[in-house]
């Protein structure tokens, strides 16, 4: 299992579109993926769960990825956060 902490750097935070982009990665993955923010842990394959966390700009988000493609999933997530979800940086 890989545990990875990423920082939300886009201005609007994880709203509907970024949540969708996260699920685009976690949904088809073979690994189990959990997202941990502000003391809550949720299934990161669920867009409803990810949206419900309402993660704002500047937050640290922890992902727990466990499965055969865990490295690839973490790499993609890292890239996504790094690119600010193709949105403007805050």
């Amino acid at each position, binding site marked *: 299992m890989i545990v990875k902490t990423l920082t939300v750097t886009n*201005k*609007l*935070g994880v*709203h*509907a*579109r970024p949540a*969708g982009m996260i*699920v685009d990665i976690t*949904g088809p993955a073979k690994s189990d993926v959990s997202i941990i923010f502000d003391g809550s842990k949720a*299934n990161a*394959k*669920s*867009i*409803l*769960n990810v*949206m*419900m966390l*309402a993660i*704002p700009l500047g937050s640290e988000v922890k992902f727990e990825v466990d499965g055969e493609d865990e490295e690839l999933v973490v790499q993609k997530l890292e890239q996504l956060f790094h690119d600010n979800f193709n949105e*403007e940086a805050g």
Partner: protein
Amino acid sequence: MTTSTKKQAKGSSSSKTSKKPLRIVLVGVPASPGFAMGKVFPITNREISVVEETIPESRVTTEEQLFLKAVSKTAKEIGQIKEISETRTGVHDSLIFATHLMILQDPGLVNGVLEMVKKKHKTARWSVHVVLGNYIEKFEKINSPAMRDKAVDLRDLYNRLMTALDDSGPVLEDVALEQGVVLAAHEIMPSMLIAIKPGQVSALVMDTGGRTSHVAILARSLQIPAVSGLRNVAAQVNAGDTIIVDGTGGMVIVNPDEEDIRKFHERQEVFERQRRELFTMRRLEPMTRDGKYITLHANIELPSEASKVTDFGATGIGLYRSEFLFFQKDAPTESEQETAYEEILSTMSPCPVTIRTLDAGGDKLVAGLTAVNEANPFMGWRSIRVCLSREDIFCTQLRALLRANKSGNLRILLPMISGLNELRKAKAYIKRCADELKAEGVQVGNIKIGAMIEVPAAVMLVDLIAKEVDFFSIGTNDLIQFTLAVDRTNELITEMFQPHHPAILHMINRVVMAAHREGIPVAVCGEMSADPMSVLLLVGLGVDELSMTPWSVMATKKIIRSINYEDVRESALTVLQMDDSDNVNEYMHKKYAQTITDLGISSFVGQVDGK
């Protein structure tokens, strides 16, 4: 707004036929002109009652299948609406639909429902109600306005799923089977209208809304007759009832008698004849008999409407409300906006196109952008104020506009300007974006920049503003609302919303004089520019351009071609001396009502008398 309900039970005493359905006459607000008769297709807001029901083990598989089928049916339905919406609006990859589809496949939702069916032996309906209901409740409690808004999307999905689970409910495909139905609903959402195929719906009737609601504007641009503000029409009609809709007069008749139907055909015929006659106006110049040329432009809501505008005889776009792109999608990207703007600009070239920068707020909330729960939204964080404090959104729009302006016919209109500070800031942003684009090697065409005059402060400073812009556009709705301190959405004081109030006429006069001193034109783009008496006053006051819904252009052209500028000028100067709007209306009515009636455009401009 007056709403009266007359119920008349038509006795069937002599005939042996079973009792006739009840004839009901309802009066509301004429939201979109035209006449139609058809079968009622009620759109219920789907207040679905669900009961907790335990099922035997043997039915578990059936219920599971039922749920999965409902999911795929709903996904198909959303896919269809997405497709239709894309061809209608030209906006692709709309976020709303992508999110809906993803939620529909959410493991938490799908597995939650399936588990409840399997382990707790509940029906699929009850399980959806509980599982999705929990999510809705949680979203409503989230401490982020943008996320709270998503609860609306979830409720929409809830309704769709419930309907799909209940085969008798109305779904999009059912509507498609029958042509020319009349949609009846408590409230009709703009998204619902966009999903309608041409010919599918002949008219709209709804309990809520007024003339300026978004649905009304959309109905007018799609040329579907509509009556709004009927208060309780949805509760009084049944599926399949025959209904007559008079969108010009704002009246509907449910289960009409023979006399009603005869009158309907008569009026519809007049309407069609007038429409045909008006089309002969298309190629004629909008010039008064003594040779003053008045520019007639069209207001549009959707980029795809641009291609129809010239057919109605307009020589440009006087107002494209860019908010519509933002209703479709939280934050359309620069290239998405560029595509939409370019469609309009290239279709209309070389005719001028006025695009108003994002005018969100007030009654036009954009998800995730505008503030909610303002005590006084019309005077709140809206319009240019949002743009100036959200540089990211404003600059994205400005860059898209400048990029799209390949043929140099763009006019950028800045809304809600209340002083020079705002105007200069906005102009600085435009200049900065243009410089950036030039540095990136993009060719930036000529643009004109105008200020919307709709805040009384701007009228007081109009001499100064005129020196710094290329044109004015008077937004009459807000100007009246702010000047007379009358909330136009408040039904208790609708009578006080008086476009011909002397204060308003003096303001327009002042704006025109200031503009002409600086040699710039003045346009009026509100509802006022399509009302016959107002047209006479505006022309008389020296307004250069009128912009209105496309189909009003021909009727207005006919009015302009029938008058002498010198005469309406004199009338305007006369009413400027008057002390209240009743006197103004009485004077204008006495002098012009007959002329206008004789023009034979009654179906298009509403009643001239009865002001």
